[in-house]
């Protein structure tokens, strides 16, 4: 999962990025409203973490413009403003959740998971599909009753494909979702991960759609 972090404070931004990365997420970080606008117009993210007190353009304005463009990406507001009126304004402007600083890293990751779960239309935290069980909290995976050992990238790749079973994702799209800005990506990285996953889950679990990309079918 790839997140966009919009936060102007260097110490807080750095800490959130490190903390979420440990949790297996890919985090791109922008530090002002204008940069955030540009990023949101050009890229796609699973979720956006938005600070309200931004230089150049306020977080609420960024959010308003985002929703006006019809973008439905989940937005979690991170702010020091804790008045009820501020929360109401944030949520009414189009945020999906609101977290007041200072917050706990565990709470942040839990809320992120909850938002992503809701987005995928799932009520339970575990992702279960054709004998495969993924736990996004603990990063544990099991296949046909047996524990499965997956690397962070492999886990992320499965999670991404299972967000919308049946949808075809291109190699470029998957790369974008798995790797942050400035990260070195081997040209065949996605193929290597798919290959490894097929070894562990069998050939048919992930299908190749020739010339388009990869998918995990809804019903076998």
């Amino acid at each position, binding site marked *: 999962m790839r997140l966009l972090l919009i936060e*102007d*404070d*260097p*110490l*807080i931004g*750095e*800490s*959130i990025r*490190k*903390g979420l990365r*440990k949790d297996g997420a890919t985090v791109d970080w922008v*530090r*002002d409203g204008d940069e955030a606008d540009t990023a949101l117009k050009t890229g796609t993210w699973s979720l956006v973490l938005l600070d309200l007190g931004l*230089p*150049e353009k306020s977080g609420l304005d960024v959010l308003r413009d985002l929703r006006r463009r019809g973008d439905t990406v989940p937005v979690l507001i991170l702010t*020091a*403003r804790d008045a009820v009126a501020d929360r109401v304004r944030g949520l009414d402007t189009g945020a999906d959740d609101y977290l007041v*600083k*200072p*917050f*706990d*890293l*565990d709470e942040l990751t839990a809320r992120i998971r909850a938002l992503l779960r809701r987005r995928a239309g799932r009520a339970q935290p575990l992702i279960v599909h054709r004998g495969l069980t993924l736990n996004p909290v603990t990063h544990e995976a099991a296949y046909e009753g047996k524990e499965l050992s997956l690397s962070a990238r492999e886990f992320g790749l499965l999670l991404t494909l299972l967000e919308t079973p049946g949808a075809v994702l291109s190699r470029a799209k998957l790369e974008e979702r798995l790797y942050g800005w400035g990260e070195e990506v081997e040209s065949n990285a996605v193929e290597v991960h798919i290959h490894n996953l097929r070894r562990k889950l069998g050939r048919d679990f992930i299908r190749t759609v020739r010339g388009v990309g990869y998918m995990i079918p809804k019903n076998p």
Partner: protein
Amino acid sequence: MKSIRSRLLAWLLSSLLLAGLLASAVTYFQAREDVNGVFDFQLQQIAASMKNRRLPQPADLRDTRSLDEEGDEEGDWVVQIWRNDGTLIYGSQPGLLLPRYPERGLSTRSWKDKDWRVYATTWRDRTIQVAQPLNVRREMAAAVAFRVLIPVLVLIPLLGVVIRISVGRALRPLDEIGASLERRGAAALAPLPERDLPGEVLPLVKALNDLLRRLGESMEMQRRFVADAAHELRTPLTAVQLQLQLVERANSAEEREAELVQLERGVQRAIHLVRQLLTMARVEPDAVREPPEPVPLEETINAVITEYAPIAADKNIDLGLARSEPVTVTGYPADLRIMLSNLVDNAIRFTPSGGRIDLRLSLCGRDAVLEVEDTGAGIPPGDRNRVFDRFYRRHGGATQGSGLGLAIVKCIVDRHGGRISLDAGGEERGLKVTVILDSNPTDITKEVR
């Protein structure tokens, strides 16, 4: 406690009593004049009436009852008649026989420890002398004077009651204001009603309302400051909390070490903010303080440069005094030092490694001119006014200040009645802060000499 009511009462009643006494004294003297005139005339009348009277025999001095009825009993008249050879032929009161005085007409004599008014006249071969003791006249005058005093004495208790009631009524607005202030909570600063107040009380209520208004403004300022401060503290505390959790999750010793360094930075930032908040509260214009004193600015600058030299050296910044003249200003030494420290601290924060910070102190006429110039990023003209606002931070740069440094500087400059301006440094780069304060007059006289 001195009550207006009892003071008014005492003043009014005592002056009334004094006026009454004065009036009766005046009456007494006037009455004595009048009584004198009347009785003197009577003396003469009695003497004249004696001329045609058939007198009893000289030997028969004791038998004079018939004559006494003529005289006024209260008047205490003493009538004596002598023949020209000096034989007393008549005395109205045998017990009281005054000597025969040689002068004719009216005179005042002293006889037997009493003052007497005496009238003597000569008729044919006789001398008629009529006398009356003066104390009779005095008693009559005193009686008249006392009668004048009676109504005043009756009036005093009556007036006392009336004054008490009327003063009580007139002072009721004051009592009401006192009661309404007493009932209030400490935070209720609504103005007192100014309608229907007597002219004497209105200025007091207006002054009170003005005080309440200023108190309210000051409380509101404090409240806003506390709210702002709490809000501002969240940011460094958030960073600290996140960094602490990263330390807990570190997988290796090196990673933990690196996170601890970050954590320390976060804690340092929180400490810096708290320190600046305390300074801000201390330099607030309403803070109580000592009277200002002469401050030799040169010493302050040297102390600040000494303090910051190691920090500047760490960042490889050349910090120094480019020009200095002995200048003394009147002010608060601790505040002026905080002001300079903040300016130098800012300059160091925003000047990259290898840069230069110059301090200059000079005397320009009456003005003490202090400059801090750096070779950092500077502040664009559009932002130069906003940087004095509390908690305003400019975007960009990894160094984050508390947002209070320049607000504190401005506060101190204002407190000293000075001016501060921001310009670009030399060659249109960096920032030059100029502070102008009133110098002590002694420097000017030195300059003239």
